[in-house]
């Protein structure tokens, strides 16, 4: 009895905190939406001016932003790259994370782990030129090259996440399957892979987000291929001497939608903790 009352009390405080925190998100979002609907001539430097509602609610900015960015085409490229990267990452990184996470006692695998994880800290600027050259030499100066690079770039972080997750998954599960005569490969795909679902969702969200917003990699790898991703196309709104914030904001709001939907789907998975059931 006593336990429930403290839980309720602390929940009230949690709620208050969460709502307070929310205001730091609602306010910028409000500004983004309002600016996305305004015309450049409505932009001022006064607070009342920037916070006021647009004179006319029209979708013209969105229409124009879609035209400038060649929206559907860029969206297609962005989706293609993001979906394939996420898919390959979940398959490859989980497998590698499993291999490294289950061999922590081995010197070799420990070294491989540290070797790969330290790849996370390579400043991208030092890789840019060599990668631009290397991908071109290998005939990979296209979207597939970009995907391959992403799979490599996010490998360190994802492997760290997967192998961290594995520490809380008991070995007993695999040993039971092994006694039944299943191979390691099969045990992995039948037992471990499904159990890591919350981590798959986490990895998918983090990877998708990073890929979705990334400008640099496609910029240097696909330069001159006439294909654009959404963030690349959005660069068209800014130049040193003039930025059309209204169109840009409309465009950013549009490109926010797919990734937000993806996150909402994934976050359900993050929370459907399969582990709890499995451990019992």
């Amino acid at each position, binding site marked *: 009895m006593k336990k429930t009352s*403290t839980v309720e009390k602390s*929940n009230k405080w949690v709620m208050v*905190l*969460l709502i307070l*925190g*929310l205001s730091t*998100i*609602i306010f*910028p979002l409000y500004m*983004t939406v309002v*600016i996305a609907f305004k015309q450049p001539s409505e932009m001022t430097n*006064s607070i009342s001016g920037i916070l006021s509602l647009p004179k006319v609610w029209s979708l013209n900015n969105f229409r124009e932003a879609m035209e400038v960015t060649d929206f559907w085409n860029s969206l297609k490229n962005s989706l293609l790259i993001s979906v394939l990267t996420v898919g390959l990452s979940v398959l490859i990184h989980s*497998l*590698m994370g499993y*291999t*490294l996470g289950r061999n922590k006692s081995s010197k070799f695998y420990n070294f491989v782990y540290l070797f*790969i*994880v*330290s*790849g996370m*800290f*390579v*400043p*991208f*600027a*030092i890789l*840019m*030129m*060599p990668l631009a050259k*290397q991908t071109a030499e290998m005939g990979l100066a296209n979207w597939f090259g970009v995907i391959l*690079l992403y*799979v490599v770039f996010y490998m360190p972080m994802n492997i*760290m996440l997967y192998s*961290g*997750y594995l*520490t*809380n998954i008991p070995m007993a599960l695999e040993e039971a399957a092994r006694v039944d005569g299943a191979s*390691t*490969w099969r045990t992995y795909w039948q037992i471990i892979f499904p159990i890591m679902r*919350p981590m798959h969702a*986490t990895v998918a969200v*983090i990877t998708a987000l990073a890929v979705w*917003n990334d400008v640099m990699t496609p910029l240097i790898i696909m330069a001159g291929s006439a294909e654009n991703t959404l*963030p690349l196309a*959005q660069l068209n*709104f*800014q130049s040193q001497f003039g930025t059309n*914030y209204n169109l*840009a*904001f409309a465009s*950013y709001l549009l490109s*926010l939608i797919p990734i*937000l939907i993806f*996150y909402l789907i994934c*976050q359900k998975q*993050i*929370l459907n*903790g399969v*582990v709890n059931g499995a451990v*019992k």
Partner: protein
Amino acid sequence: MSKHENERKRTFMLITIPILALFICFNTIPLIRGALYSFTNSRGFGSYDWVGLRNYIDLFSDARVGKSYLFTIKLALVTTVVVNVLSLIMALGLNSKIRAKGFFRGAYFLPNILGSLVVGYIFNYFFTYIIPALADMTGIRALGSSILSNPSKAWIGVMIVCAWQAIAMNTIIYISGLQTVPEDVYEAGGLDGATGWKQFKHLTFPLIIPFFSINMVLCVKNFLMVFDQIVALTKGGPAQSTESISYLIYNNGMAGGQFGFQSANAVVFFILIVVFSVAQMKFSSSKEEQL
């Protein structure tokens, strides 16, 4: 049993080799090729000369580089602490039984998706116009002018934006960590009368230490390599007080003509964070073993 062991070892090796090869091909080899430029005076294209260790010697006598290291490390340390404390609180909050959980989780994710042009514009506006106006109204003189225009305070502005954007991701990782804590641990704890802070300290936290260390490493990585927020907010100003290391490497190496010198900077920087992070990982894995 040993047959099984062999099968297991072979499988692991067969998994490791191709993936490791891929990694070496697109990470290690370009890194080495890039590092070779650090011994040249290359501008990134065209012909260049070998200059031996000149770039490295210059690096240690360059006041601008030194300043950028100090700024970056200060920013990273403070932001890491702020982000981890806040996101752990958030994760516990969002993981508890509250109303509209899905809505909150969705909303708190937004800062991550807004492009850096949008974030830069909004926060610039916030720091330049809104905060000083609020300060005027409330009479707080200290906040009367934009913190982004003050060389000794601008880093705080950058810190706020970094934290604002990073909290969501760290929270997600903590939440997924909290999912691995079995309910029965709490039940057992509840019987012993462990609640609130005590429950967290003795039951929850030890179980999510792997996630804590992941978050620490990710924070250190993200904040030591801070770039987007600098471009969006200050472009290194005012008075070069917010030039992060990555910003300097990109801006002078890629956009400017200092490719060789900044490659040397990148190599030194890389070694520095690797040492730092490996030490940190070793430390937290020894903690894990203790528990």
